[in-house]
């Protein structure tokens, strides 16, 4: 802290950041999913308020807190509710109205803000997404198959025999071997560090972000807590957060064809793949391995995220428009005044389907994809910002209308720019490689709030 900052803090009577109430915070907010991982998302509907409360009461003792996650080697359960789910619990109308507009509306209603048009429009989504039926999402994360099966038994025991609750569907996930996503990349590497968190931190995470950006009830980056639902004293939001869940189908054949058409020889294709993402498939960042892949670097958490863009402001190593640099520009000089730490999400994404196949050039009909899971104290608003500004636009990096090459919806004639000397190279004919199959905005309550919801004492 500079002298000026100290004086400012004294003048403004800034208190030191309060300690996080780890016993009350769900483990998923602060701890990575296991690696490797197995798991299931179960989607449920409350047919009656009593049924919903009874289920929450049964689940609550099994939801792991951040206090007992540090040394945990077993499966854990996380739960989150939609606004429709909170309404189905017959909560007080004023309390229901005090949640932020985006969460109240639900993801399908916010399609315009999210730019979920055409193939991504809610009309095309799989059931039960966007129907208002999805009230509760229960996620089981496990480091091995045995504890996953055991946790699934526990979860199903809680669902079974409760009147007034319907299981709408469940979706297994996990990626073996090596936790690669369906395009073959090691993912979930660059998560933000949370101030006051107890999970291990890794070199390159940057300055820890104020806890209030991710957990309700603590000061955020602007020095004050973000808006919370309910009365500030005794808020139902305290120690909770919001979740953005988006299920993507990935078109691996189209991705492979694009690399084959534009990448040249085998090395050129892998380099192009790395330029689109910002990392080689092993996880090695282009910033540290600009010429060729370095699998040892990719697997090393002490090194694979330890870089900045201060010496690559031209984007010669890592293109400005690549997926990773767009989603976390770090110290890139941006064309628009932006506080990067305000637009971070904690990601707990999960991959599903058969492993990546480099030889796939025609659709084999397999369902491959990714549940994007982003958490923060304003996750819906952050997702809407990202979709509008960082994913489906290029203004912030002076790339006009150019879009994110991995998750952007590409119009006809879309391009991807590779900064090179003496002049940039523009690749024409980039297509959409991910299609949205559904999604929801959810609220992940603190454990005390979860018990209050179960007892209808909200």
């Amino acid at each position, binding site marked *: 802290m500079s002298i000026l900052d100290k004086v400012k803090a004294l003048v403004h009577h800034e208190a030191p950041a309060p300690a996080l109430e780890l016993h009350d915070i769900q483990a998923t907010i602060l701890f990575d999913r296991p690696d490797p991982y197995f798991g299931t998302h179960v989607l449920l509907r409350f047919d009656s308020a009593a049924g919903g409360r009874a289920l929450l009461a049964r689940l609550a003792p099994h939801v792991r807190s951040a206090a007992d996650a540090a040394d945990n080697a077993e499966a854990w359960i996380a739960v989150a509710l939609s606004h429709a789910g909170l309404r189905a619990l017959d909560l007080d109308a004023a309390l229901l109205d005090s949640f932020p507009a985006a969460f109240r509306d639900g993801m399908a209603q916010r399609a315009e*803000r999210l730019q979920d048009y055409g193939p991504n429009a809610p009309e095309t989504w799989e059931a039960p997404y966007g129907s208002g039926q999805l009230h509760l999402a229960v996620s089981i994360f496990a480091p091995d198959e045995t504890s996953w099966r055991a946790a699934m038994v526990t979860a199903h025991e809680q669902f079974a025999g409760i009147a007034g609750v319907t299981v709408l569907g469940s979706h297994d996930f996990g990626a073996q071997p090596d936790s690669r996503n369906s395009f073959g990349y090691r993912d979930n590497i660059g998560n933000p560090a949370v101030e006051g968190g107890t999970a291990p931190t890794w070199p390159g995470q940057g300055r820890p972000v104020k806890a209030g950006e991710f957990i309700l009830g603590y000061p955020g*980056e*602007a*020095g*004050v*807590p*973000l*808006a919370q639902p309910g009365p500030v004293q005794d808020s139902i939001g305290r120690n909770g957060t919001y979740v953005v869940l988006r299920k993507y189908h990935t078109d691996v054949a189209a991705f492979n064809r694009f690399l084959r058409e534009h990448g040249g020889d085998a090395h050129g294709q892998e380099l192009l793949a790395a330029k689109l993402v910002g990392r080689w498939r092993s996880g090695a960042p282009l910033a540290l391995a600009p010429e060729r892949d370095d699998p040892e670097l990719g697997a090393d958490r002490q090194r694979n995220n330890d870089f900045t863009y201060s010496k690559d402001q031209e984007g010669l190593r890592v293109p400005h428009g690549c997926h990773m640099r767009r989603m976390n520009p770090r110290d890139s000089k941006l*064309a*628009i*005044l*932006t*506080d990067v730490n*305000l637009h971070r999400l904690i990601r707990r994404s999960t991959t599903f389907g058969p492993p990546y196949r480099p030889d796939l050039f025609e659709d084999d009909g397999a369902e491959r994809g990714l549940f994007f899971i982003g958490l923060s104290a304003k996750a819906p*608003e952050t997702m*809407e*910002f990202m979709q*509008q*500004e960082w994913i489906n*636009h290029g*203004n*912030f990096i*002076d790339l*006009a209308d150019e879009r994110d090459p991995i998750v952007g919806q590409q119009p006809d004639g879309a391009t991807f720019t590779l900064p090179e000397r003496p002049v940039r190279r523009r690749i024409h004919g980039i297509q959409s490689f991910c299609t949205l199959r559904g999604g929801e905005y959810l609220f992940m309550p603190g454990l005390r709030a979860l018990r209050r919801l179960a007892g209808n004492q909200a």
Partner: protein
Amino acid sequence: MQEHKTTDLAEIRRKVEEVLGDAPQLLKLALENVLREHDAHADAEPGSAGRIGRQSGKVSELTAIAPLKPGGADRLRRIFKLVNGNFVGAQKVATLHDMRFVFFENDTKILFATTYDGDWDTYIDDFATKIPDLMDLLFSSVEGWPGITDPGVKDFIASHQLTADGWYVANPHLSVVDARRLQRMNDALQEFLDKVSGHVDS
């Protein structure tokens, strides 16, 4: 072709009657002439700037009217005079095309109008953390201003905003960032052309 035009003219006259049936003949003729040259869908689809306000292409408008605290207009005038309209923070923002401040009703009210790129909600949080002093300097003379870090500040701004009924944008597909890039490229292009023409006056 001739027939098509006549049909168009009949349609225009029908619309003029519908919209201005109660107006003097001179006004009706004027509107008729305007509509004969008008293409409603030229260049930019009109849309919404998000929570409130209009958007044309990439460009959005914000007009707010608010009561001032006593002495507020005088304070703001002194600030504007001091910086001579050069708001460095606003230049850094790089989504603001222009801003204007107008005092009226004996300095008791202010009209703030700006043209900016993108969505209403998108960057206000950034300004709160990146240029909080400029934001508070400009708006703390407004009655009820909660402070830029207040969680309710967006609702406060929206509550004073009026969506424009009529609005024209010359270059709806050029953001501030685009325009600056085109300016740089033109400078470089002119320099290049000077050099290849071999007639550089040094």
